[in-house]
């Protein structure tokens, strides 16, 4: 489902990723960990096709990233739910509209959008904030809205970049419970995190990244 082969990416002479190969099977829940600046976000950017690798091949959701025409990039992205580290919420739109956007882009009917948005908001315990604007929410609330937005389209692959970075332990557990629930429904999930507790007793697979180099892999 997710596969990198000898992937390298440099930013102005600085290697953010060098010669990384990894594989996440369909239906897996895997973790990437490593210190700040290790290249986790960079790896995600390559996966959701926002950046191109300098070298190596990337396969995601059954597509070879290098072979994709620019017109089919949006269609591949619709299969990928992303929790961005910096959220990327639209501050001039309500929580409802932010989450609904994912579905409007896909051409859903408003009735179904309403149903789905309310259902994911219930999952992240933020139903009462439906008409709020992102900047009136706490960091943890914004993060949960981002998670709600990433799952509302029922993607086949989820990429979550530090999804619990702003959350207390209780919410963290709740989010992990949601991820596991989605995972059991068949969604492949890759989570980047510094938080050992997150993967200590849940993960099947953990990749250790440091300075852009894959240091190890644990089953």
């Amino acid at each position: 489902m997710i596969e990198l082969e000898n992937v390298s990416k440099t930013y102005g002479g600085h290697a953010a990723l060098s010669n990384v190969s990894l594989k996440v099977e369909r239906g897996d829940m895997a973790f990437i960990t490593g210190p700040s600046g290790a290249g986790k976000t960079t790896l995600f950017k390559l996966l959701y096709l926002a950046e191109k690798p300098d070298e190596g091949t990337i396969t995601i959701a059954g597509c070879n990233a290098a072979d994709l025409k620019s017109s089919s990039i949006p269609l591949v992205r619709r299969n990928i739910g992303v929790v961005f580290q910096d959220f990327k919420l639209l501050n001039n739109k309500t929580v409802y509209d932010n989450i609904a956007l994912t579905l409007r882009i896909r051409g859903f009917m408003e009735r179904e959008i309403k149903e789905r948005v309310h259902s994911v908001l219930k999952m992240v315990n933020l139903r009462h904030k439906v008409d709020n604007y992102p900047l009136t929410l706490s960091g943890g609330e914004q993060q949960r809205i981002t998670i709600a937005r990433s799952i509302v389209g029922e993607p086949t692959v989820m990429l979550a970049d530090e999804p619990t970075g702003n959350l207390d332990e209780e919410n963290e557990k709740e989010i992990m419970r949601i991820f596991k629930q989605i995972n059991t429904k068949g969604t492949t999930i890759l989570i980047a995190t510094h938080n050992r507790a997150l993967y200590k007793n849940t993960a099947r697979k953990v990749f250790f990244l440091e300075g852009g180099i894959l240091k190890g892999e644990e089953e």
Partner: protein
Amino acid sequence: MFSLRLALQSVIKEKWMSLLSMLSIGVMLFILVSVAVIVYNVEKLTARLPERLTVMVILKDGVTSEENKAVLAAIKAEPTVKVVTFVSKEKALDELRRSLKKDDFILKGFADNPLFDSFDVKIKSEGVRVDDVKRLIQKIKSMKAVDDVEYGEALMDSVYALKSGLRALGLSIGIVFVCSVTFICYTTVKILFYRHKEEIEVYKLLGATRWFVRAPFFIEGSIIGILGGVMGSGMLMGFYYYFLRKLVADIPMFTFMSIPVQFMYLLPAVGMLLGLGGSVLALGRLKY
């Protein structure tokens, strides 16, 4: 539907910029249509010019009556000719005498009749262009029995020159203003696009197609164009009711001026096309 809503929201949110663009488009389209009205009226006016023209065909001296008849028949056969009357030199002399009245002593100096036989040719009033008249005159001139043809040559030529000059001027003004309107839409949409740049990035990351991203801007450009056109029509109407009517009341010479109603409907459509064109130009090369 969603795109339409986004576009409307954006127009309302950026109402000052949108309004300013619409106003400039309105003014430009108004000027454009005014030029069109002037050209239209001049065309209309000069289209009836040939009927006011009398062509005098002067025959050579000593033309036999057979030749005379042949010329008459040939001229009569022309589709642009309404009436042909023969004026013999005796008749011409009589007329001249009558018009000179007491001063007819001038004519006594002539032993013979100094005048000539001629035809007065009247041109049809409908569907005859200046070009046709010119061709007709060339044809008559080339006949053997014809000495010369006289007509309002100077007048016709100057009107002709004026008309083609006006057409060229109208066309160049038209092109300039069409480009300007397109350019205004282009810049407006470009600015709106850059204001929404971050939002658009998010749209793309969530899987929006190129079309989905661009549609609201196309719609927005069109809306600005349409409303600009409506403003232009409004100005035209205002001009018509408050200015032209007064003018006609004061100086009846301008009664011939008219503004075709089609222009009123046409302006918003033209505005829309140009607005759409401008926005397509603005976002045409948008890459993924």
